[in-house]
């Protein structure tokens, strides 16, 4: 593992996950200090409900402020944005987020592939994408696009994942820059741009 390879020039860190990923994030985010140079976008497969429990949970557990995602809000560094349930989350020019209720992708809305691909098109090499635990194939195609656009891709170690299918599928079909366990992911995020 290239532990010393620091990631610089990151504008957006996007994290995708499904079953088993929330626990990972709940271990990482309480230990993460404020970030100033990049925005964090989280795309999790979540129940189709109107509540904002996930947003409240992150607000409670993290020092990084959580911004409510509405259509065409501006992505600002130093904040967390969580993809709302039942919408795909997309990226526009000028750092705007947009939403879309079109068909599910990989049985999912939000789909990780959709957000990763869209972020890759806008942010290119200033994008860092992390794919966590999960039980379906969502995310792999998105990581391929992130890599193609020059971004950095990170996959949770399948043996460290509660549901290894999603990260394993990514490991099999992409060339991750890093394959890390949760502790290493925390270290890496803390080291971005520092």
């Amino acid at each position, binding site marked *: 593992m290239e532990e010393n390879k620091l990631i610089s020039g990151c504008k957006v860190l996007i994290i995708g996950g499904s079953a088993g990923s929330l626990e990972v994030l709940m271990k990482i985010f309480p230990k993460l200090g404020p970030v100033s140079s990049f925005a964090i976008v989280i795309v999790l497969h979540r129940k189709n409900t*109107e509540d904002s429990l996930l947003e409240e949970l992150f607000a409670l557990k993290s020092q990084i402020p959580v911004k409510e995602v509405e259509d*065409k809000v501006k992505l600002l560094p130093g904040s967390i944005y969580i993809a709302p349930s039942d919408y795909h989350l*997309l990226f526009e020019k000028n750092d705007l987020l*947009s939403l879309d209720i*079109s068909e599910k992708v990989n049985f999912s809305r939000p789909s990780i592939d959709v957000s990763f691909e869209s972020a890759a098109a806008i942010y290119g090499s200033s994008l860092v994408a992390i794919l966590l635990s999960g039980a379906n194939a969502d995310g792999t195609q998105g990581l391929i696009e992130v890599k193609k656009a020059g971004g950095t891709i990170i996959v949770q170690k399948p043996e460290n994942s509660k549901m290894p299918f999603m990260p394993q599928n990514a490991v099999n079909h992409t060339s991750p820059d890093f394959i890390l366990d949760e502790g290493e992911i925390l270290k890496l995020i803390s080291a971005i741009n520092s």
Partner: protein
Amino acid sequence: MIEDREIEILINDVFEYYGLDFSGYSQASFKRRVYRLIQLDGFLNFSEFLIRVKTDPEYFKRMVEEITVNVTEMFRDPLFYKVLRNEILPVLGTKPFIRLWHAGCSTGEEVFSMAILLKEANLLHKSLIYATDLNGIVLETARKGIFPLQMMKQYSENYMASGGKKDFSHYYTANYGLAKFEEDLLEKMVFSQHNLISDTSFNEFDLILCRNVLIYFDKDLQERALKLFDDSLAKLGFLALGTKETIKFSHLKSRFQQFEKEKIWRKIN
């Protein structure tokens, strides 16, 4: 994926050939839709697709149908409907006549949801629901009031969560995998093609619903559509948007007051 430059060419050519303007659409979503269609219809590359669009008006219709997103459901966001039912309809009910407009109604699921609410509030008889969409094909579906039977379980759950007390199946007749909704729900609906970008106001309304349509527009186009809604709303009329849509970026926001925390605004000025 497709290049931004190719999307620009498509938008220019479509405008030149057919007069339909997609230039104010949210780029990311539009690009995905075009890419999806190219894959779906098996074109080898973008140029082949573009030629077909330009030379085949029938295919152009298909393009419009596929590019505009027509995902909808009955009582989508049940809590929104609960607020309509408990808070908004009683206010509208004091009027002698209620005019409603569903802008971007797609295949009509939300229009039928509204008609059910009005019927249960005993207001349908004095209401008129205009339902419009850019896409004529979805309107033909909406007009029939026939939806897939397999969706009824979900819709019934949504209906109950919105505060519905009846047996939902009482509103439709099931036949060959389809659910046909009662004729009397249709009686107060007027379906018509209308383009939010290029067409003007056509009536004055007490409630305008436009949910999950503005998300496909960029900010300028959203502003234009909101102006159209403002022009079409009676004083103290209501505007209802999707759960993640907002008028807070618009110049018009001072003319409206948000109804509690809902995505419903009342025209106050």
